[in-house]
């Protein structure tokens, strides 16, 4: 409020003020010349890697031919989108992407919270740390390696499941890479295996940050472990849970390409249940060579994501202003 007063007083001399402000601005630029220069490599990179491709979304409205290049190719209006949304694929890939993400969000949240709450109960720091780094191990390896690990279980002829577990539990061998109906379960398990450790560490960090006095007071009041968890820990880390979950919801139209492409070994028969927007875009571009339609699918994904992020951020702002992204 104080700052406003002098500003309104100088209003009559506005032109003078702008002139001196722009002079002041130039002086500032000069003073911070070196710091501004330091940001240049990063800016150039963002321009090349992000902003030129943003402009490249015009590909979705063109019929690309390589001779005329991106700019010279003829415009086709919304034909690419019409083609995409008239094919059965558009519905299928959207459904798959969203349903997988819903399952991932719920399963990972429940498991990660359980792990985080229980790690907090371990008094020996070394043991707690050992568990944490073990659970994080799957997170650091590439999806290629994950695909190998899954293959060692599901390989039809020699895999652990068909050869060892089927006789143990008495079921017939399954041709895993040819039967799409199993893959929603498989991919949810694989995704949890890879991601729960990471999420648990984030929640655990939030739990450690809670003031110990709350618990001391609760113990004096006779609260047991269960009460402490549900009445102190969970409510106090709720903002972190909400933020992480909203972020995940905002990218509900995106999928981990590696999970759906590598782990399924790009197997054709599995596509009805494993094709997502990202694998569809890749296959339409590389296998079909349909640049316009794949660009249209990508654009559709980006636009929906954009509004989801704005919405999620709006929600976060209302819940806890400090955690909002912008």
């Amino acid at each position, binding site marked *: 409020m104080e700052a406003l007063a002098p500003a309104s007083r100088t209003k009559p001399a506005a032109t003078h003020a702008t002139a001196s402000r722009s002079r002041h*601005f130039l002086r*500032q630029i000069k003073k911070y010349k070196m*710091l501004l220069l*330091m*940001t240049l*490599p*990063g*800016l150039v*990179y963002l321009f*090349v*890697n992000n902003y*030129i*491709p*943003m*402009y*490249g*979304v015009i*590909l*979705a409205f063109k019929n690309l031919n390589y001779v005329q*290049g*991106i700019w010279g190719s003829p415009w086709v209006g919304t034909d690419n989108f019409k083609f995409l949304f008239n094919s059965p694929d558009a519905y299928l890939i959207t459904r798959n992407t969203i349903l997988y993400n819903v399952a991932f969000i719920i399963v990972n949240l429940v498991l990660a919270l359980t*792990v985080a709450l*229980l*790690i907090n*109960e371990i008094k020996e720091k070394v043991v707690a*740390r050992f*568990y944490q780094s073990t*659970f*994080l*191990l799957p997170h*650091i390896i*590439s999806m*290629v*390696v994950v695909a*190998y*690990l899954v293959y*060692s279980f599901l*390989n039809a*002829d*020699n*895999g*652990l499941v068909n*050869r060892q577990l089927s006789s143990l539990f008495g079921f017939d061998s399954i041709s895993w890479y040819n039967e799409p109906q199993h893959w929603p379960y498989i991919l949810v398990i694989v995704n949890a*295996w890879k991601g729960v*450790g*990471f999420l648990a*560490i984030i929640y655990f960090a*939030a739990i450690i940050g809670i003031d110990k006095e709350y618990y001391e007071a609760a113990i004096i009041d006779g609260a047991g472990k269960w009460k402490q968890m549900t009445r102190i820990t969970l409510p106090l880390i709720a903002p972190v849970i909400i933020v992480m979950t909203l972020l995940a919801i905002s990218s509900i139209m995106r999928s981990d390409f590696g999970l759906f492409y590598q782990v399924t070994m790009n197997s054709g028969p599995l596509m009805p249940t494993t094709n997502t927007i990202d694998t569809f*875009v890749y296959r339409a*571009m590389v296998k079909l060579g349909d640049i316009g339609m794949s*660009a249209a*699918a*990508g*654009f559709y994904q*980006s636009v929906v994501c*954009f509004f989801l*992020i704005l919405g999620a951020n709006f929600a976060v702002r209302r819940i806890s202003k400090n*955690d909002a*992204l*912008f």
Partner: protein
Amino acid sequence: MNRMSFARVSFIHLFFGAFAIVSIFPFLLVFMVSITDESSIVQNGYSILPSKINFAAYSFLFNDFAQIARAYGVTIAVTLIGTTVSLLITALFAYPLSRKGLPLRRTLSFTLFFTMLFSGGMVPWYMTYVMTFGLKNTLLAMIIPGLMLSAFNVLLMRSFFANTIPESIVESGTIDGAGEFTIFLKLIVPLSAPIMATIGLFNLLAYWNDWYNCMLFIDKPELMNIQYLMTKTLNNVQFLIMKADTSSQVGDLISKMPTETVRMALAIIGVAPLLLAYPFFQRFYISGITSGAVKG
């Protein structure tokens, strides 16, 4: 009361013990398969306790190690260059953003931040690099696209600079007559070892594990990195010997190849460096994740 808490503690350790086994078991399985005798696999399938041990798969791979060695060479070169350059660019971008007086600070932040909100999608991105910059089949195609500057890492580093480096340090440098770049290099960087280690590690893992760029931009076998060689081999184990000169040689090699185990041996060779290094860097990695979570 004591019995109760004993039961609880044992339950927790039982739960985590099971969880730890689930995390590690698949790696162990692949390793055991890679050292199983081929005949034992035909008999019993993949097993964690093979009836007969045999290192034939490894000796087969080491017999003709050139391809694997070259793929490793590509991965190592790309990782070293990529990690260094991207750490440099990230730090150079993040530090000015952490300075309160910087003019255009909001514009710069927004330019960075907007890339987290909207993207042109994979196709225009790919076309930009292939058609505008001609990166197809070059080492640069595994270094530059996508991996070099993560907005998230910049924000992480910016909040480290803003929260842990006292302003008085910059002032003292200015009084001594040092320029901004000298202050950054001589005063700020040495104080920022933890965040440099964290971001460097994030970058290193991203480059080491990358197969996506290689899949998109590289056709030439001699430019394949280890991750993509593994991808190709998983789908077709004969990919490993395809480059043999004559068809009779190929036939000969295929008949000699312990196909079931050689695949898993390659997986172990591919993942071993990461698994062996993990105990040494896991602390930095965990603290990196937590520092990202507790937002500054």
